């Protein structure tokens, strides 16, 4: 079984970018409940830029992810965008020089990304942000080593995270200021991550 390669990343970018066509509006709407309504626009812009970025010149996964991080740095100043960039850099550092990364490493890599994002953004798990969904996926994929199983488990865990946080208040970002109102509403960052994981798991 092949692992994660530059080609895998390229494919993932295409799937995510395609998904944004319909997801953009849903995320904007979610963000406009309590935030500034730009989560979808931002993710579209970043993924569009990724799609334009030729990472095939990179011999290793780490290099490809760093190229994407640099593209993000020039494309957005939003919190989610910068956290995304942080995650890419963190995983990129761990996969430097690797032409192929075993799927069994994915959970640990997500864990490393999570730590970097917590460090960067100052939020904690449980604050109802994108972090909680990433955490759920990292946990669910621990010890799993084939792509198909990872896809199923990740997709399911992401959905569960979204559902279980719906009834909780947001504690970070703009929505924090309206913590009570945020109960019953999806966090747009988390929603975006979950929808993209679903798409990647489904291969479209």
């Amino acid at each position, binding site marked *: 079984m092949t692992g994660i390669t530059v080609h895998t990343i390229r494919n993932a970018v295409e799937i995510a970018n395609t998904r944004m066509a319909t997801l953009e509006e849903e995320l904007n709407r979610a963000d406009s409940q309590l935030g*500034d*309504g*730009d989560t979808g626009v931002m993710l579209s812009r970043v993924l569009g830029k990724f799609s334009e970025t030729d990472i095939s010149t990179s011999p290793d996964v780490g290099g490809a992810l760093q190229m994407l991080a*640099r593209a*993000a*740095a*020039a*494309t*957005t*100043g*939003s*919190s989610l*965008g*910068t*956290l995304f*960039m*942080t995650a890419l850099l963190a995983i990129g550092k761990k996969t430097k020089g690797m032409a192929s990364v075993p799927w069994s490493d994915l959970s640990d890599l997500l864990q490393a990304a999570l730590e970097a994002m917590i460090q*960067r*953004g*100052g939020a904690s798990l449980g604050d109802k942000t994108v972090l909680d969904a990433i955490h759920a996926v990292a946990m669910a994929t621990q010890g799993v080593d084939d792509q198909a199983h990872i896809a199923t488990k990740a997709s399911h865990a992401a959905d569960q995270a979204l559902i279980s946080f719906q009834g909780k208040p947001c504690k*970070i*970002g*703009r929505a924090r*200021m*309206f913590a009570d109102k945020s109960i019953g509403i999806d966090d747009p960052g988390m929603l975006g991550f979950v929808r993209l994981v679903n798409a990647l798991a489904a291969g479209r």
Partner: protein
Amino acid sequence: MKKIMNSASTYVDDVLAGLVLAHPRLALGGSANRVVHRAGGARKGKVGITSGGGSGHLPLFTGYVGQGMLDSCSIGNVFEGPNVESCIDAIKIADGGAGVLRLYGNYGGDRMNFDMAGEFLEGEIETTTVLGTDDVASASPDEGKKRRGVAGIIYAYKIAGAKAEEGADLSAVTATAAKAVAATKTIGLALSPCQVPGSAKPTFEIAADEFELGMGIHGEPGLWRSKLKPADEIVDDMLSRLLEERPAGHGGRVSVLVNSLGATPLEELLIMYRRVAAKLRETGIDIVQPLVGHYATSMEMAGASISLCFLDEELEHLLSAPSGSPFWEVK
């Protein structure tokens, strides 16, 4: 809300193009033309000071680039932090070989981007950070580090800028900036919202006869809402909140900034300033170099803020040093 603009997507770049055309002492740089800097470039050997933030707050932040103030400034989209790349560019442009102070308002996104930019440049340019945290409404005094930065940050620009111009090193400039931030307290009131270009609705809603005390410049909720009251009553409330935070041992001299958030006209600022001056005189405080006007706005938002900068001898000396930014000149 009506806007004179070409399109939401060109808004910021059109503004910046106009800014540097109108003020030839400013120039536009960085890989995406999202850094405003002194036309002459960094002065060799001087500590650089860079700032940045979202667009929509003119003359903040870019209008304070100039001699004796900022060296560069990275600009994001309206109400969005500047991206990491612009922050990197801004730090590089401000660098004259003596290190760069990153001096900007305490907002989560901005902090992430400036921090990340600093890390990208590690080993290349020495950087320090001071965050503007003057808004007393945004957290209690014991959570002072959580407070956001609003109009009062211009005192830190001016004071740190003068210190750098005097030839102080990075750690001294950083310490002075931190001292200026600690000495400056702001409180704002909001009357009506603005609208982000391209957005379908205003940043917040408020009844036609109400105002909100302590609301943030992006519409973040404040302390309380009430029916409009006479200006003097409002000012008294605002001032007493600021004076509660007067530092122990303060010598009795302050600079005052009465700032329009955008649509509120000079007339109303002066009505407020009249009361501020009378009340401070009563309290035995002398006003130095008052500023009344549009210094930090949220486009067409109506409202105003009052900032007090509690001076000591050093701060007052630096405040009165020459500066040549387009929107705050001292000669």
